[in-house]
C-alpha cells in the first residue's frame, strides 16, 4: 500500500458548488476582512447553528480548500503537524492537516477545539499571531504560512465543565464571530431552502424550536438547534406525521426525562 495515500491533497478539498448558507448578520463581511488581514477566526456558538456550513461557504467564496480537523482529547501535536513514516526502508515525512494547510494556503478549520488536549492547542499559538509560522519540532524547521492560509476554529461556550474552558492566551489571538440560532424569519427561510418544505410548515417548526428554547434552563440544557429542525423537516417532507417527527428528531434528542418529553410533545401537538 502506498503510505503516501494517507497524505492530504489540498486540491481535493476545494468546494466547487456553492454551499447554501443564509447570512444572519455581518459575519461574511467580517470573515472576509479577517481573512484579508491574515487574522485567525474563532466561531463561537451552540451546536447545530451553522458554523460548519458557514466555513464551507466561506471556503467556496474565498476559493480556498477547506481542511477540517475534528478535535478529540487524544489529538496530539503530531496529528496536526505531521510525522515520519517508513516506506520500503526509507523514511518519509508526511504533513499533518495543519501543516498541509499552512503550506498550501488552505483554510484549516479546527472543530470543537476545546476537546483537544491543552498542549495541542499550544502549537497553534505562533500560527495565530502575526508571526504566522508553524514550528515543526521533529524536522527542526519552522514553516512559514502561505499567503492565503487561514486558521479558524470553533468553540461551544455552552459547555458547563470548567475544565473545558478555552485558555485566555488562546482565545485572545482570534477574531471572534458569535453564532446563535438565526432569527425566526431567517431560520424559516433556511428550512424552506435547505429541505424544500412549504413556508407554513417551516414557520411552525421554527415556532416549535422557540418553544423548546424557552425551556433552556427550565429543564432543558439546550433548545432545539437549526440542525434538529432540518432533521424534522426532512422526516415530515418524507411523509412522517409532524408530531411524530418532532418527537423523534427533536424531543428525544433534547432530553431523556419522561416528564420533559411529554411536555415537549404537548407543545408540538399544539402547533401541528
Amino acid at each position, binding site marked *: 500500500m502506498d503510505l503516501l495515500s494517507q497524505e492530504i491533497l489540498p486540491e481535493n478539498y476545494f468546494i466547487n458548488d456553492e454551499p447554501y448558507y443564509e447570512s444572519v448578520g455581518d459575519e461574511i463581511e467580517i470573515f472576509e476582512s479577517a481573512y484579508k488581514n491574515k487574522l485567525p477566526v474563532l466561531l463561537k456558538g451552540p451546536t447545530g447553528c451553522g458554523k460548519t456550513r458557514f466555513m464551507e461557504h466561506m471556503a467556496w467564496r474565498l476559493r480556498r480548500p477547506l481542511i477540517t480537523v475534528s478535535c478529540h482529547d487524544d489529538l*496530539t501535536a*503530531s496529528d496536526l503537524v505531521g*510525522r*515520519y*513514516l*517508513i516506506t520500503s526502508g526509507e*523514511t*518519509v515525512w508526511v504533513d499533518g492537516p495543519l501543516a498541509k494547510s499552512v503550506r498550501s494556503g488552505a483554510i484549516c478549520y479546527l472543530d470543537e477545539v476545546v476537546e483537544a488536549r491543552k498542549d495541542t492547542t499550544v502549537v497553534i499559538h505562533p500560527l495565530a499571531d502575526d508571526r504566522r509560522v508553524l514550528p515543526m519540532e*521533529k524536522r527542526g524547521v519552522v514553516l512559514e504560512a502561505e499567503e492565503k492560509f487561514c486558521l479558524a476554529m470553533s468553540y461551544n*461556550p*455552552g459547555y*458547563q*465543565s*470548567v*475544565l473545558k474552558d478555552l485558555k485566555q492566551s488562546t482565545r485572545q489571538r482570534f477574531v471572534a464571530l458569535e453564532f446563535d440560532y438565526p432569527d*425566526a424569519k431567517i431560520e424559516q427561510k433556511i428550512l424552506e431552502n435547505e429541505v424544500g418544505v412549504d413556508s407554513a410548515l417551516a414557520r411552525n417548526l421554527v*415556532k416549535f424550536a*422557540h*418553544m*423548546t428554547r*424557552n*425551556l433552556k*434552563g*427550565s*429543564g432543558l440544557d439546550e433548545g432545539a438547534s437549526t440542525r434538529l429542525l432540518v432533521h424534522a423537516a426532512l422526516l415530515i417532507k418524507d411523509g412522517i406525521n409532524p*408530531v411524530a417527527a418532532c418527537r423523534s428528531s427533536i424531543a428525544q434528542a433534547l432530553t431523556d426525562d419522561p*416528564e*420533559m418529553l*411529554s*411536555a*415537549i410533545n*404537548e*407543545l*408540538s*401537538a*399544539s*402547533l*401541528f
Partner: protein
Amino acid sequence: MKNHTNDILNAEDMEERLDQFLDPILSFRRSAVGPAKQMSMLTVEEQQFGLHWVEVIASTNAEMAYQYAAHFSDAILLLRHDLNAVENWTIEAMSAFDERGLQLCIKVLHNTKEFSENYFKKQHGIMLDDIKKLLTVFVCGLNGRSLKIEAAEQTCTDTETIYLPEVVSKYPTKEENFFYFKLLTVYQWAQNWFGTWRYDLNEKFNQFDDPVRALKLFHCFESIRLLSRIRYELPGFFRQAENFLNDYNELQTKTLLTHDDLPENNNLNANKEWQSIFSKLSEKQSRVDDTLDLLEQYYSLIEAVDFSFQGVLLVNKVQNIKTRRLSDEKTLFREALARLADEKHQANSESVETFEMDKKKPDFDTVLIEDIDLPDGATFELTLDGQVIVPPDDVESLMSSIIQDIGEIPEEYLVAAGPGKYVTENEVSANKTDGVWSGAYHEEGAYFYDEWDHVRQHHRKNWCVVREVRVMPVYDDFVQKTLSNHMGIVKTLRRNFEALKGEEKLLKRQINGDDIDIDAVVESYAELSMGMELNERIFTRMQRDDRNIAVMFMVDMSGSTKGWINQAEREALVLLCESLEMLGDRYAIYGFSGTTRKRCEIYHIKHIDENYNDKVRARISGVSAKDYTRMGFAIRHLTALLEEVEAKTKLLITLSDGKPEDYDGQYRGKYGIEDTRQSLFEAREKGIHPYCITIDKEAGDYLPHMYGAANYVVIEDINKLPLKVSDIYRKLTA
C-alpha cells in the same frame, strides 16, 4: 347440593350457598333470603365474585360477611358493574374492619355511593399535582413571562401564576380530563400573552352604570377573542379543543343561522349582533381594545354568555400585582440602563483618552420592529446614542416583561438611574447600624474585608469584620439516616462518580510502561534512520487521570433556610461528601451568615485537608439556620482560603436560597448584588471558578448578573437538592 358450575344461580340456590357461609349468625329472624334474591339478578361472573368474597370474609367474621352480602348487589350497581371497583370497595371495607372494627366496616359498606364517586374520580380524573410539572414546562415553552401553576378554588390568573382546580374529572376518560386541564391552562396563558390585562380594567368597568354587567360581558367577548387568537397561534391545540367548547360552539353556530333556520325569529337580532361580534373578534390581530370597543357598543344590547372554561377575572388582584411589578421593573430597568451606559463608557474611555469629556448623559431610545407573530404586531430594539445594542439576557427578559405589560417601553423608563438616591439611603442606614454595634463587638482576632460600593464605584476599606466560628457538632444518626433514606440515590451517585474517576487514560509516548506504542516506535525508528537522536518515549501506560481539583462549598446558613431547606442542605452535604470521598477530590465546606458588616460569620464545617470523620459528620448535622445573607465577605474569605491551596482547578460552589440581604436593609437589592458580583470578579481574577446552586425560583433575575448565565442553576424542587448538588458537581467537573 346443586351445581358448582358456571350456571347462573336462582334465588333459591343462591340462598343455599349463602347459608353455608353465614350459618353462624343466621336465625329465624334473620335469613339470607333478601341478599340472595338481589344477588340472583346479577351475572354469573358477579355472583361467583360475590360468593368468593362472602366466603373469604366469613372466615374472618360472619357478621361482616352477612353485611357484605346484604350490600353487595347495590355496590355492583353503584360501581357500574366494574369488578375492579368492587374489589377495591371490598378491600377497603375489610381493612376498615381490621383496623377499626365492625362498626366502621359497616359504615364503609353503607357509604358505597360516596366510595363510588371518589373511586371514579380517581380512576379517570386527573389530579393537578400529578401534572403540575408538565403543565409548568408546557406554559414555559409557550411565549411570554414565565407563569407558575397552583391549585385554587377558582380558575384564574394573577399574571404571575395560573390557578387551576385540584382535580378535573368531568369527562369519562383520563385523556379528556387531561386535555381539559390543558385547555384551562392555555386560556389563562392567553390572557397573559394576548393582552387582556393591558389596561386597568376596573377603571374601564366603572365607566358603566353596572360595572359587574360590564365585567361579565367583557369576559365573554374577551374569551371569544382569545380563542380566536389561540386558533391562529396553536392550530393543533385548537383543533382538539373544539370538542371541549360546547357552549362556545353553540353560540358560534347560532350566528350562522339565517332567518329561515329559526323556528321563532325573535332572537334574530341578537344573533346578528353576535355575528358581528364574532367577526370583529376573529380578526387575526384582534386586541383587547377591540373587546373594549365592542363592550361599549353592545353593553345594553346583549346578555353575556358564561363559558364553562373561562374561570374568573380577578381584576383587583391583577391590578395590585401589576402595579408592584411595573414599579419594580421600572427601577430594575433603569438600573440596567445605567449599567449598560457605564459599560459603554468604560469601553470607550479605555481606547480614547476622553474620560472626563465623554461624560454626557447616555441617550437611550427604542426602535419599533414589526413582527406579525407577536401579539402586538411589533417588538422593540434598544438603542444607545443612536446605535442598536443587544442587552444581556436578564435585561432582555426584563424588557419583554415590560412590553408584555404596557405594549412598549415608555419614555420615562429610558432614563438611566442616577446614583444620587442610593447614596443618601445607604449613608443614613450605615450610620445607624454603626451606632448600634460600635463598642458592643470587639474587633480583635477578626479578619477584615473590603466591600464594594457600586454607587461610589470603589471598595469600602476593611468594611466587614469577619470571624471564623465553629458549628456546634451534633452527634446523632443524621448522616446514617440520610444515607439509608437515599439508598437508591447513593448507589447511582457512586456509580456515576466511579465512572468519572475510573476514566483511565492510555498515556502514550512514555519512557517506560506496560506496552509498546507502535506509532512511537515507527516514528522513532524513522527518526533514527534520519540520523536523529533515538527517541526513548516508545511505551504506553495506563494511568488514572489526575483530577487535581480543589473545591470549596459555601453553604447559606441564613435565617431563611430554617426548616426543610436546612434539612435539604444538610442532606445534600452528606451525599456530596460520600461522592467526593469516592472521587478523591479535595474539598472544604463552610457555612456563612451574619448580622450587619460588624458581625460576619463563617462557620467551619470541614477544612480542605480535614478527613471526612465523625467530627465533620457531626458538624454537618449541626448546621442550623442563623441570621442574614451578606455574601460578599464570605466569597472573599473563602477565596482567600482557596488561594492558599495548590490545585490546577479551583471551584467555589455556593448553595443558596435567595438574594443577598442583611439586617440593616442596606445590603438588600442592588448594593448587595453588586458587592457579590464584585467579589466574584475578584475570585475569578484569582483563577477560581465560582458557581451557584440555588433554590430561589426568582434567581433568574439576579444570578446571571452575579455569576454569569452559565454559572448557576436553579433547583425547582427542594427535595431534589440532595441528589442534584452531587450531580451538578459531577457535570461541572466531567
